Structure formats: structure tokens, C-alpha cells
């Protein structure tokens, strides 16, 4: 019993296909990038067009600390990836904790920034075009950070229980890919909102 063609000049076929998990996550990232592009497009389109209310120049402060933390967290997760591939699990857990902490710092800074904007400067999502586009875009990104932190925290808890080893390195690599994407989006958002838009 055989499957399809039998008489082909015999040579064993080298057959390596890309990992389905990486492909799936890359596809998800492509779709998400399209969503972010639309929100960025709306932000850029409405720059300078608000009829009233506070302008970015007046009230936006550059979130330097959070940005550096988020960028460093990409480095931290890269070290964690290397650690899990080489089964250095203690190192992995540490770098994972560092990633989560840095990500959390970013979120805390965002929270403090929004608190100031809402209560001190009077900017809400309904104040003017700037408010609408700002909170939508930055909020969409922050939501993705929250999801990422959730995935990372779950992994962290599992690794504390000792359930994680190098066999999960591909799966963790996929989460890391997502986290790098979140970081890359922040670079774009940061540039558009805090550098160009002010």
C-alpha cells in the first residue's frame, strides 16, 4: 500500500515548513497593524483640526520614562527567549519578571498621564478631535499592552510552578513576537503623537 506517485526517481525529499504558530502570530500581527494604521491615519488627518479645547502643544508631556521602559522590556523578553531555548529556567523567570515589571511601569505612567490630562487639563474623549483621536489611539495600544502583560504573567506563574521548560520555547517565542509588535507600534504612536503631533 502506498500513497501517491510511486515511480518517481527516488530521492527522499527534504521537507521543512515554517512553524504554524509563528505564521499564525505573524498573520495576526499583520491584521492588527492594519487596525492601528487606520487609527493613526485618523489621528494624522485630524491634527490641528480641533475647533476648541486644549491642543497637544499645550498639555502633552513626552512620556520618556515609560517609553524607555517599554523599549527595554523588548530587550528583556529577548533575553528570556534565549534563556528558555537554552533551558536556563531561573534566568528565564528573572528576565520574564523584568519584562512584566517594565511593561507595568509603562502602563502606570500612561495611567498617571491620563489622570493629569482628564482632571487637570480637562481633556476627555469627547472634548474635541484631539481628545477623541488621542485616547482612541493610545488607548488601543494600551489595551494591547494589557493583553500582552496578561499572557506574560500567566507564563510567569506557570514558570514559578516549574511547568515551563525548553519544550515551550516555540510557544513562548510566539508571545515574544507579539510583545515586540506591541513595542514597534508604540514607536510609531510615540513618534506621531508626541513628536510630530506637538
Amino acid at each position, binding site marked *: 500500500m502506498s*500513497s501517491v*506517485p510511486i515511480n518517481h526517481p527516488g530521492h527522499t525529499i527534504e521537507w521543512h515548513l*515554517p*512553524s*504554524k504558530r509563528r505564521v499564525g502570530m505573524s498573520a495576526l500581527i499583520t491584521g492588527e497593524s492594519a487596525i492601528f494604521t487606520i487609527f493613526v491615519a485618523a489621528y494624522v488627518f485630524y491634527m490641528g483640526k480641533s475647533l476648541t479645547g486644549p491642543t497637544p502643544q499645550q498639555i502633552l508631556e513626552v512620556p520618556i520614562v515609560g517609553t524607555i521602559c517599554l523599549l527595554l522590556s523588548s530587550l528583556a523578553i529577548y533575553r528570556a527567549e534565549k534563556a528558555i531555548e537554552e533551558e536556563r529556567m531561573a534566568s528565564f523567570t528573572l528576565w520574564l519578571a523584568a519584562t512584566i515589571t517594565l511593561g507595568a511601569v509603562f502602563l502606570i505612567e500612561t495611567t498617571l498621564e491620563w489622570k493629569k490630562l482628564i482632571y487637570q487639563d480637562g481633556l476627555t474623549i469627547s472634548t474635541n478631535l484631539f481628545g477623541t483621536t488621542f485616547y482612541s489611539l493610545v488607548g488601543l495600544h494600551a489595551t494591547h499592552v494589557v493583553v500582552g502583560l496578561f499572557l506574560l504573567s500567566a507564563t510567569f506563574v506557570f514558570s514559578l510552578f516549574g511547568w515551563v521548560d525548553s519544550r515551550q520555547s516555540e510557544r513562548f517565542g510566539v508571545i515574544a513576537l507579539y510583545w515586540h509588535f506591541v513595542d514597534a507600534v508604540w514607536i510609531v504612536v510615540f513618534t506621531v503623537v508626541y513628536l510630530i503631533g506637538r
Partner: protein
Amino acid sequence: MSNYSLSVSATIEPSATASELGTFLERLHGWVVTVDHKRLGILYILYSTFFLLIAGAEALLIRLQLAYPHNHVLSAQVYNRFFTMHGTTMVFLVGMPFLFGFANYIVPLQIGARDMAFPRLNAFSFWLTAFGGLLLYYSFLGGAGLYGVGNAPDVGWFAYAPLTERSFSPGHATDYWALALIVSGFGTLGTAINIIATVISMRCKGMTLMRMPLFTWLLLIVSMLTLVTITPLTAAQFMLLIDRYLGGHFFDTQAGGSSLIWIHFFWIFGHPEVYVLVLPAFAIANEIIPVFSRKAIFGYPAMVSASVAIMFVSLGVWAHHMFTVGMTSVSNAFFTLSTMMVGVPTGIKIFNWIATLWGGRIRFTTPMLFCIGFLFQFLISGLTGIMLSVSPWDWQLHNSYFVIAHFHYVLVGAIVFCIFAAIYYWYPKATGRLMDETLGRWHFWLFVIGFHITFDTMHFLGLLGMPRSIYTYQPDRGWNLLNLVVSIGGLIQGIAVLIFAYNFIVSYWRGKVAGDDPWDAWTLEWATSSPPPVYNFEELPEVHSRRPLWDLKHPDDPDWEYES
């Protein structure tokens, strides 16, 4: 008909006896919790067939109202809900699920895999899509209830802002539209991701990308396109909900917001979306035409590159839906050019299909009849598309019945015809029985006649100045007779579809037994039993050409000696 069958399927039992299948509840449970791509494919197809009948009924009511001027079958409000729901249903709850349903069923079989890459995501995506549809139709029960068609969306399927803003659409109709489509959009995204991962990562040994069946190639391209097509709509719908519920101003013209960015975002979704709908029709034709001409597809590499070209160019033509919004002459000229350019790879495909037929031995089975209808109708609709791409002419034809005629020519004349062809072609694989050929012919001829009576005539209504989205028209504008003719054609199509529905249901029990390979075809799905076992193939195959079964059936003249 070939009686050749691979030993891969020789040891499979056709179907278990009734008592072994379990009680009705157990079987129902099996379908509800299934992650098997074949079952999910069938669920998608049944789901979209159901909505095809509903949206078809909506269309018939629309045509009944328009058969005479100042008719009173539907009031303005009810009519506006019906045409909105007809369009929204057909695109999102019929077109997309049908095509993704076929992809689900056939792609893993054609690439020699056991299932999709992510079976649970597959199930989740189906149920999300299903829930989205349910939510959309739940709107009929809102508002004033079934009297007055409830709270169904009434803003047109493209829901232009600011009509959809709270100030102009105070009820929940628009919310149903946005939420239902966001939910089903996530389902669509999940399926697209799944198809991409499956095709890239799960092909059987020897099946390089350039040896995949064209059906699978095109569904890969469609899935990639979907990633960047459905997501702009989801983004815009989020923005709309932010406007409606959080006091946002994305499309609030009183606060400096713009109707124009909704229009841009919508068509950035809307145009590639029609390619998402039509490429699977090409995929189906690519399978059926060769088999019933008894020839390999002519120019496989060109077909692949043309499809990839369409994927990219289709992302740059969206503003041909916006020629009348007052863009600059340079913008209008650019989009005219890009739209004409996308017609080139599309037109080439027709030549490739004709070249495939040329020199063949054409068998006019029902699936082939529908594909032939597709060829003529797609040619015509491509040409009316070129007419519409001529922006000055579009300034007359935009939003008129000429446009409705054009896109129904593609959606019905090309896509629905191919969907029917696909059902007649793959039904034997999925059920083990052939659909009835005589009923199939009745279906085809009635449908084609009704189709042309309706949609050929409709072009003239557009030329005579009749705009779309109107619940009635003035009797002194010269549109009366043509509208009546259009409506009559609709009724004929309705009858044809009923014949089809009867055939579809009854053949499951009374159709001729099909066997593994009733059409004497050449791709891997015909190498396993009909229906396939849950694990598809006993042993995963290894292929060396684009038509593995041709190689098996013609060992003296295998394809791998000719393929470039």
C-alpha cells in the same frame, strides 16, 4: 468515470450503522463541539445557505415594492431596512461564510493534511461569525418589534457617516450593524489566520507552493488580503461606536469631524472586500473548468502571479467608489488608472480559462454549466467595471442602477454561479452522493434566464437616471416598464433557487452513490473516500506535481515531466 481508487481509502468503512452513531442528541452534540474542518466547513455552508434564502426573500420584497411606481408593499422605513439588511447579509453572512466554508472543507484535503492548523480556533471563529449573524438579525425584534421590521439597520450597507451618528440615527439600528459586524469580523480574521497557517505550514511532502492546487493558492491569497481588508472596517466601526457612545467626534461634522474619512475607511475595506469575494470564485473555476475540459489549467504560473498582482493592486483602487465626492482631477485620474490596471490581471484569467477549454473535450455537467455562465457573465461585468472606472462616466453612473447591475453581475453572475458550481462539484465528496443532474439543469436554465432578464435590464435603468436606495419612484420618469421586467426576472431566479434547495436536500438520501472520484479529477481530495474519514487520509500523501492523481492514472505520462 474512473474506477481507479487509491489504496489509501480501500480500508475505510463508508458509514457506520444508525445505532453506532448514537442518539440524536449525541449526534447534535458532536456537531456543536466539533473541531473537524470538514464539519465546520459544512456548518459554514449550511449557515450561509440559510441566510442566502433570507436575503433572497428580502430582495424579492424589494423588487415587489419597485415593480410599480408609488407602490405600497413596503413603507419607506421598512424598505430602507430591507435594502440595508439585504446588502449586509449577502456580503457578510452569505458570501464570506460560503467561501470560507469551502476553504475549510477543501484546503486541508487538497494539501494532504489532516485538519487545519488551529482546529479550536477554527470552531471559535465559526461560532463568532454565527453569533454576529444572530445579533444582526436579532435587530428585527428590537424597536417596534416585527411590525415595521423592528430595529434593523436602515442606513445602507455602507452606513455613511454622519447619517450613522447619534444625531441622525438615534435608535439602536446602527449599533446592531456595527456590533454584529465587529463580532463576525473577528471570526473572519480567525479563519483567515487559520488558512494562512495551514497552507504555509501543513502541506504534505513534495507539495511546494507552486504545486498547490489553484483553489488552495487563491484561498491563501484571499486570506492574506482579508487580514488587511476586514480590519479597517473593524477600526472604523470602533470609531463609530466611540462617537455614538463615548461622545467621540471622529465623524461629527459639528465638531470639525469629517464624513470623508468614514467614506475613505469604508472603501479601503470595501473594495478589497469584493476581491475577497470574487477570488474564491476564480478558485472554484480553476478546479472545475480543467476537469470538465479534460485538460490541465493553461498557464498555472501566470494564474498565480495574476492573482498575487490582483491582491496588491486591489489595495490601491478604493477611491473609484468616491469619484463624486469632490476629489481633485489628479486623484480622480490616478484612481481611474489604477482601477483600469487591476482589470488587466483579472482579464488575463479569462484568456487562460478559454485556453484551457481550447483543445479539450468539454463535458457539460451541471457544475460546468454554471462555470460557463460564470465565464460569460464575468466577462461582461468586467467590461461594465471598466465603464465605471472611467471617472467622468462614473459621475453619471455612480449610485445609479447601473452600478447595482454591475455589482450584481459580479456577485450573482460570477460568484453565486461559481458557488452553485462548487456545490454540485463537491457535494458528492462531502455526502457520498451526487446531486440530480436533471434538476440541476432546470436550476441552471431558469436561473440564467431570470438573471439576465433582471440584470441586463437593470443597466438601462441606470442609464436612464434611476438612482439606488429609493423606496419608490415617480411614474413619469420612464422607468415603469423596465422596473417591472427586472422584478419578474427576480421571481424566476427565486423559483430556480427553490429547485436547487429541493435538490440539495433530497439528494442527500436519494442521490446516486458517488464513490471516491465521480468526476475523474486530479487533486488530492478525490484520493480519499466520499465522505472522507475524520482523519482525511490513512497515510499522508507525497506529491511530485500539481495533479497527483493524473500522475497516478497516467504513469506513462506524468505531469512532473512537463511542469516548469
